[in-house]
C-alpha cells in the first residue's frame, strides 16, 4: 500500500519535472517552471521518507539540514559568479552519484550480474570524472587555477590511455565481480582523468565544457537510476543529460568546432605565428566625448557585450548608457553571441540583472540581418565573436565560426583595454577598418564617461 503511494508521488514528480522544463521555454512562464520543479522535488522526497526500509531518520535529517545550510549561500552568489557556481553544483551532483554507486557496489559485491556491473561502472566512471572535472572548471572560472590552457606533448595520448584503462578495469569487474580489490581503481582513474581533461581547456571554451559536464552529470544520474531501478531518477537524469547535450551542440556549433576539438584541441598555440608578422598598423581612436556625440546622433545602435564586460562589471553602466540613449529616441539593442561569456546565456543574465528588458536582447541570427541598417555597433569587451576574419580569411583559426557582423554597421566602436589579441590569440582586422573607432580604457569607466557626456550635452 505504502509502496504504491510512494510510486504515485514519483509519477507526479516526473510529470512536474517535465512541465517545469516545458514552462522554461519562455520568460513569461519560466517562474512557474521553478515552482513545478520545487513541488515535484518536495513530493518525491516526502514519498521516499515513507519508505519502510528507512530506519535511521537521524542521518537523513542531518544530511538534509546540512545540505540546506550549504545550499542557501550557493543560491545567493553574485550573478557574475554563476558560471563557477554552476560548475560546482555539477561537481556536487556527480559526488552524490559516485558515493551512492560506491556504496551499492560494496553492499552487493560479489554477486553482481554482468549487466548490472556494467551500468554501475558507467555510473561510477562518469560520476568521478565529472566530479574532479567540474571542480577544475570551477577553479578556473573562480581564477584559483590558471585560466590559460596548459598543454604538453602527448597529452591526448595520456588522456585517452587513462580512459581506456578505466574501461579495462570496468570490463574486468564485469567478468569477475568478486575482484572487489579492483573497484577503487574504477574511481581513482576517472578522478585523475577528470583533472587531466580540464587542464588543457581555456576560458573561452568554458561554455562548451560546462555544458558537456552538465550532460555527464545527467547521464551518471540516469545510470544510477538503472542500478537502483528508479524510473524517476532515469527520467530526471535523461532530461539533464539531453539538456547538457543540446547546449554543448549549440556551443560548439557557435564556435565552429567539434566536441573532440574542444576537448582535445587546445586553442592557445596559434598566437606566436600571428604576432610575428604583425606590423604596427595605425588605428583610429576616439575620446568619450566624440563617442557620445556620434552615439547621440545615431538612430539605431547595437551593443555587443562580451566576457570583458562581465570582468569589468560594466553591466550597470551599460544600462545607464541604454537609458540615456533611449531617452534621446535612439533605438538600442543588444546582440548576444551564443558563446559570449563563460557559460551558455551568461550575458543575458548579467544584462537582465542590470534591468535591461529581455526583448532588447537579441540572438545572433536575429540581429545579424540588421547590422547594415545600424548606425553604430558598440562592442564592449568582446573580440573573437566580432572578428570578420572568421568570414573572410580561410587561413584564420576561427574561419567558419559564426560571428556578429558588426563590420556591416556604418560606424563601429570598440571599447578595449589595449590592442592585445583576444583569447584565441588572433588579430582582429575589424580594428583597422576605416569606420572603426577604438575607445581605449576600462569598460566600466569608459561607458561611465560616455554617459556623463550624454547627460551634459542633454542639459545644455
Amino acid at each position: 500500500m505504502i509502496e504504491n503511494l510512494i510510486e504515485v508521488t514519483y509519477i507526479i514528480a516526473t510529470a512536474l519535472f517535465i512541465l517545469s522544463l516545458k514552462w522554461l521555454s519562455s520568460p513569461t512562464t519560466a517562474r512557474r517552471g521553478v515552482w513545478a520543479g520545487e513541488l515535484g522535488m518536495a513530493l518525491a522526497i516526502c514519498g521516499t521518507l515513507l519508505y519502510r526500509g528507512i530506519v535511521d531518520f537521524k542521518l537523513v535529517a542531518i544530511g538534509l539540514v546540512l545540505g540546506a545550510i550549504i545550499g542557501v549561500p550557493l543560491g545567493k552568489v553574485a550573478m557574475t559568479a554563476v558560471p563557477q557556481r554552476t560548475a560546482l553544483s555539477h561537481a556536487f551532483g556527480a559526488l552524490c552519484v559516485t558515493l551512492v554507486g560506491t556504496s551499492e557496489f560494496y553492499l552487493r559485491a560479489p554477486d553482481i550480474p554482468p549487466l548490472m556491473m556494467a551500468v554501475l561502472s558507467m555510473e561510477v566512471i562518469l560520476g568521478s570524472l565529472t566530479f574532479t572535472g567540474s571542480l577544475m572548471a570551477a577553479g578556473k572560472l573562480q581564477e584559483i587555477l590558471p585560466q590559460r590552457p596548459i598543454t604538453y606533448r602527448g597529452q591526448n595520448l595520456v588522456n585517452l590511455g587513462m580512459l581506456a584503462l578505466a574501461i579495462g578495469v570496468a570490463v574486468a569487474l564485469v567478468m569477475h565481480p568478486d575482484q572487489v580489490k579492483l573497484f577503487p581503481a574504477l574511481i581513482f582513474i576517472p578522478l585523475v582523468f577528470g583533472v587531466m581533461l580540464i587542464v588543457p581547456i581555456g576560458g573561452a571554451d568554458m561554455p562548451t565544457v560546462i555544458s558537456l559536464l552538465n550532460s555527464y552529470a545527467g547521464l551518471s544520474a540516469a545510470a544510477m537510476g538503472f542500478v537502483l531501478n528508479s524510473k524517476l531518477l532515469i527520467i530526471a537524469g535523461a532530461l539533464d543529460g539531453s539538456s547538457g547535450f543540446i547546449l554543448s551542440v549549440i556551443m560548439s556549433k557557435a564556435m565552429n568546432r567539434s566536441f573532440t576539438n574542444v576537448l582535445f584541441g587546445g586553442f592557445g598555440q596559434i598566437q606566436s605565428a600571428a604576432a610575428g608578422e604583425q606590423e604596427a598598423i595605425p588605428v583610429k581612436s576616439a575620446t568619450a566625448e566624440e563617442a557620445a556625440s556620434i552615439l547621440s546622433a545615431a538612430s539605431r545602435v547595437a551593443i555587443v557585450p562580451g566576457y570583458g564586460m562581465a570582468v569589468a562589471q560594466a553591466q550597470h553602466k551599460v544600462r545607464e548608457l541604454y537609458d540615456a540613449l533611449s531617452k534621446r529616441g535612439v533605438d538600442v539593442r543588444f546582440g548576444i553571441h551564443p558563446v559570449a561569456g563563460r557559460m551558455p546565456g551568461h550575458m543575458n543574465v548579467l544584462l537582465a540583472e542590470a534591468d535591461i528588458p529581455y526583448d532588447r536582447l537579441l540572438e545572433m541570427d536575429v540581429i545579424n540581418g540588421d547590422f547594415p541598417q545600424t548606425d553604430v555597433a558598440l562592442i564592449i569587451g568582446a573580440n573573437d565573436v566580432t572578428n570578420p576574419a572568421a568570414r573572410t580569411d580561410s587561413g584564420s583559426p576561427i574561419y567558419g565560426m559564426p560571428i556578429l557582423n558588426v563590420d556591416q554597421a556604418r560606424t563601429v566602436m570598440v571599447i578595449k583595454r589595449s590592442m592585445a589579441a583576444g583569447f584565441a590569440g588572433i588579430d582582429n582586422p575589424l580594428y583597422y577598418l576605416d569606420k572603426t573607432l577604438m575607445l581605449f580604457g576600462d569598460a566600466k569607466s569608459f561607458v561611465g564617461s560616455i554617459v556623463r557626456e550624454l547627460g551634459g550635452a542633454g542639459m545644455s
Partner: protein
Amino acid sequence: MKLDLLTSLYVFMLAAFIGFEVIRRVSPLLHTPLMSLTNALDAIAVVGAIILAGEHKNNLAAILGTIAIVAATSNIVGGFIITDRMLRMFKASGPKKP
C-alpha cells in the same frame, strides 16, 4: 533483473526524446537558468541517497549516503533559489515609448 533493465532502457530512451523536444524550445535567453534548473532537478538523486543512509545496512553505506544527501540537497536548495532569482530579473520592456 534482465527484464527490468530493458524497461529502464525504454524509459531512458523516451525521456531523452522528451528532453530533446522540450529543451530545444527553451529560448537562448534562458540558457543559464535552464542549466541551474536541470541541475536542481538532477539532484533528485537524493532519493537514492536517502534510502542508502536511512537503511543503514552498514557504516560505510550510511556515511557515504549521508554525504551524498548533503551534496544533493545543497544542489536542490541552491539550484532552485538561484534559478528563481535569475528568472525574476528577466523583465519585458512594458509600457515604454518606442
